[in-house]
């Protein structure tokens, strides 16, 4: 659903990576690892079109991203769930409304999804935080809320940037299970993480591919994991 071919990106003069080819097909589960500062977040931003590539082409849901106007980008994003690395919320709105935001923005009836919301919040351990404001949450709670927001629309693609950096191991596994379930429903998942234990755990559950971004190139990680 998202295809990168020969993509390169630089911030100013410093070239971050080049010639990246990546295909997020339906039902695919990818991990993205690499040292801090390698460009994982940047690659994800390219996938959800926050950044435009310096070279190469990005096809998104069958269309050339370079040809999309701003409204097309917005529409494409309604089919992509994103967990931002520093999870951002609307600070004056209660958590439940923040999680419902993608539905509201898409103009979908969010009254009908209340059950769905309740289940989802309970699964990520935020059952009693519906009325809390985002600044009142702990770091890990915010991360879980960001994941909940990313999946509430049941999007075709889920791009998660370090969604377990601040949560404990048990909770990491719950979040992983959620993503695996969605993946089994045919969603495509790209998950950037440093947590090798999590990757190992996931590989036991789904046929996940592990990509490593290092020294300006994207490689498939082998058995050295």
């Amino acid at each position, binding site marked *: 659903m998202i295809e990168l071919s020969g993509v390169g990106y630089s911030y100013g003069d410093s070239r971050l990576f080049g010639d990246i080819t990546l295909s997020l097909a339906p039902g695919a589960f990818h991990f993205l690892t690499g040292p801090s500062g390698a460009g994982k977040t940047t690659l994800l931003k390219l996938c*959800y*079109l*926050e*950044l*435009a590539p310096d070279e190469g082409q990005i096809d998104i849901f069958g269309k050339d991203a370079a040809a999309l106007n*701003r*409204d097309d*980008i*917005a*529409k*494409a*994003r*309604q089919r*992509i769930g*994103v967990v*931002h690395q520093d999870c*951002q*919320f*609307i*600070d*004056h*709105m209660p958590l439940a*409304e923040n999680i419902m*935001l*993608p539905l*509201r*923005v*898409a*103009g979908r009836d969010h009254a009908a999804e209340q059950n769905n919301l309740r289940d989802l919040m309970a699964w990520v351990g935020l059952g009693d935080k519906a009325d809390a404001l985002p600044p009142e949450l702990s770091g890990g709670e915010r991360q879980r809320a960001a994941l909940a*927001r990313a999946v509430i629309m049941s999007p075709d693609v889920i791009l998660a940037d370090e969604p377990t950096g601040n949560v404990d191991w048990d909770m990491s596994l719950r979040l992983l299970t959620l993503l695996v379930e969605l993946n089994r429903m045919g969603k495509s998942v790209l998950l950037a993480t440093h947590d090798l234990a999590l990757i190992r755990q996931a590989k036991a559950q789904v046929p996940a591919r592990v990509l490593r971004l290092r020294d300006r190139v994207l490689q498939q990680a082998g058995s050295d994991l």
Partner: protein
Amino acid sequence: MIALFTPSPTDPERLVPPSGITAQLTAFAAGAMAFLAVFALALMFATNRVADRWSAELAQTATIRVSAPAPQMAEQVQSVLTILGQTPGVASARAMGDDEQRALLAPWFGPDLPVEVLPIPRLIEVVEDSTGIDAEGLRLRLRAEVPGAVLDDHGRWRRPLIEAAERLRTLGVLSIALIALTMAAMVTLAASASLSANGKVIAVLRLVGARDSYVIRAFVRRFMLRALAGASVGTVFAMAAIAVFPDSGRDTGFLTGLGFRGLEWFVPLLIPPVAAMVAFWATRIAAARKLREIR
């Protein structure tokens, strides 16, 4: 634009923080400037009234002085009135009565002046209509037909006063223009500042797939209502202040009090909608600029 006042089902309005100092800023800027604008309007009306009155009272009257031996006086006055009746630009003309002339001369001669027996000229008051009279033509005709009649069109007294009146008018218009411009600039900047403080909200909205028009709508309506509310409060306060402003000057003839008369009271009511419009456009433009920074 009307639709902006009625919340839509997927009402984006709540996305904008309802309070906080940057939110107050737009309302307050609109309120303060509306307050000043009302005073400037009142000043403009007051100066306009003064200018109008001076123009009317000073520019549009003239005096004809008829000197003649007592027996011929009545006849000569009558000739002048006849001529005036044929002169274009004369609205009315009448000879002053003895009492009037006595009142006019009182400062110099005292109230007991025997006008009847004195060999003083008789005065004819001429009221011009809006076209005005051709002073030179009239003067020539009078010289030919009634040599004892002299036209005094008050030009000497009139000119500085009319200049002063015009200057007052300029002053009023200038202050209203200044304040209107400052108001627009303040509201624009306040909206930009407030929007800038909400950069995170905009980023989040784009991240979850909001269209630009949705984002803009979320802000524009809120900000417009804020400006409207602020300007309304400012306007009402200022109008109340002006209503209680001492206004004993109705008859001074030189300067009426600061205030509104009759229908003028409705003009300041235009200020809140204007402020709202300014906020509307300022917010649209600021939001569009902010959106251009993120994809």
